[in-house]
């Protein structure tokens, strides 16, 4: 039988104040299984009565060894594992991995594939924000928002299933482009989402934005300022809610984002309510981007033609000997990018999601490291929660929108 391996308070005394040793303050465990830590997060909280003096997060309960496992698989097979890290933004994980491979090998994604990538990434961002608003409102006991958000989310998951066959872990984006072209019903399905959504977002705002109970529980709670955010390398809506308009889609554009016209919503208060407002405004901006990308969707191929990295279409295999040889080499050995290392990053709903990829010229990646945005967000928990009540901890964890699969990999 396994034993739970624990730290004693003695080993952790450098993290808590001296009052914890004497018993004046209480050290409490908000364990891995808890209704409002989203996922398996353990918080060791030092309390003075009901006020939080210090809060130490303990992660690692979802560590899956994905980075080591990817070193044992070829590049194409390793992509399947990337979906499962940040499981709310699955398309984004695939996208950043493929962007890193494209940077390393020099593949170019054609314009039609770029536009479809943008549409799917923005739909995935919408879906992630819907889950966030549902679960964080559920923690503050607004249950109807959760039910409405899940109902909307089904529409987006139906589009993912239409395009790739899978609701969440699609692996639809491949190095060089996409797996296959979108079916004919894609346009109508996405337009239906665009027609229905603005009214639904108004519904959520009607339930929460001017609700005095919600404002009471969220205004002035969990404040952080821009300098701390930059020192701890926090990015995403948490940074934008402190006043700095920083977004990877505008500063280092990828996949053709420079052609679309959208704004970066910011607030200045830096508290839980400001982050809520930023994310709701981001949902509306996403709808704008999807509409522009869908209207301008160009015709053309959806994957690059470079047969050293991209498999040939099956219709050619019966006719051309070269295609057969390329297909054989790609399926048995896998493609071999040149040696070197790159770092690419995109904007995920939590912040900057980046991949560090090092290749040694072989068919398997030598080192893949995902620079995930949830780690800095968890590191600033002590700053956000100092001086608040235990009940406010729940609001704070909901507002920073962490995904533990992202932090632990």
């Amino acid at each position, binding site marked *: *039988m*396994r*034993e*739970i*391996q624990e730290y004693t308070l003695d080993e952790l005394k450098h993290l808590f104040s001296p009052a914890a040793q004497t018993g004046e303050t209480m050290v409490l465990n908000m*364990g*891995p*299984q*808890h*209704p409002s830590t989203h*996922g*398996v997060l353990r918080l060791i909280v030092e309390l003075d009565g009901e006020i939080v003096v210090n809060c130490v997060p303990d992660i*690692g*309960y*979802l*560590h*899956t*060894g*994905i980075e*080591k*496992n990817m070193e044992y698989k070829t590049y194409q097979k390793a992509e*399947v*594992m990337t979906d*499962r890290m940040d*499981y*709310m933004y699955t398309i984004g994980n695939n996208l950043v991995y493929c962007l890193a491979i494209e940077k390393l090998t020099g593949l170019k994604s054609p314009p039609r594939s770029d536009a479809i990538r943008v549409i799917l990434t923005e739909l995935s961002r919408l879906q992630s924000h819907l*889950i966030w608003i549902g*679960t964080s409102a559920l923690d503050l006991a607004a249950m109807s928002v*959760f*039910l409405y958000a*899940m*109902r909307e*989310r*089904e529409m987006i*998951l139906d589009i993912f299933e239409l395009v790739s066959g899978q*609701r*969440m*872990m699609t692996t639809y984006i491949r190095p060089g482009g996409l797996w296959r072209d979108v079916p004919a019903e894609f346009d109508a399905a996405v337009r239906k989402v665009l027609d229905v959504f603005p009214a639904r977002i108004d519904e959520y705002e009607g339930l929460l934005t001017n609700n005095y109970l919600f404002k009471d529980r969220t205004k002035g709670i969990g404040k952080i300022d821009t300098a701390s955010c930059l020192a701890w390398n926090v990015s995403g809506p948490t940074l934008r809610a402190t006043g700095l308009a920083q977004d990877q889609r505008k500063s280092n554009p990828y996949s053709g984002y420079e052609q679309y016209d959208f704004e970066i919503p910011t607030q200045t208060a830096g508290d839980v309510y400001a982050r809520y407002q930023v994310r709701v405004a981001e949902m509306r901006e996403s709808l704008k981007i999807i509409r522009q990308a869908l209207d301008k969707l160009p015709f053309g191929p959806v994957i690059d033609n470079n047969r050293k990295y991209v498999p040939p279409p099956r219709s050619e295999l019966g006719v051309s000997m070269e295609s057969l040889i390329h297909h054989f080499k790609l399926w048995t050995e896998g493609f071999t990018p040149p040696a070197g290392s790159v770092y690419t990053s995109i904007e995920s709903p939590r912040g900057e999601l980046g991949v560090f990829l090092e290749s040694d010229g072989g068919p398997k990646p030598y080192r893949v490291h995902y620079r995930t945005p949830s780690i800095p967000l968890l590191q600033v928990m002590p700053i956000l929660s100092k001086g608040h009540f235990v009940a406010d901890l729940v609001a704070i964890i909901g507002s920073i929108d962490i995904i*533990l*699969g992202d932090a*632990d990999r």
Partner: protein
Amino acid sequence: MGVEQKLGNAGIVTTTLEQAIDWSRTDSMWPLLFGLACCAIEMMGAQAPSYDLSRFGMELNRASPRQSDLMIVAGRVSQKMAPVLRNLYDQMPDPKWVIAMGDCAACGGVFNNYAVLQGVDEIVPVDVYVAGCPPRPEGLIHGIILLHNKVRTEKLAEWK
């Protein structure tokens, strides 16, 4: 010639004690809130309005293991989490059942490495395995109905 024929329309049904208790056990099993990773999102989707779990009496997840009878292990179980899971299972009162939802809980899934337990049945006895990565909400509902059928056929001598 049983009791039913003599009673006519008196509004009385007869059954065995075994069947009555098995039926009542299935109709309001409360799950323990135990979503670990991606399968938890599909479990939340199954509780959402489109694939309602409330019709099985399972709309509320109890946070405390002392108040629940079903543990749906949804997601991958890592080395650090395994003793915690066993601890929670030990705290649940009898009768209790376990559904292993998803490939990672059933057999280790995509991850065959040092960090993930190859199937949660290495530490707790599992009643129903639901396959999929993640399984569709309808798949989870199918697993729950299989569990209900299994509970309905339990015999008095084997009650725990």
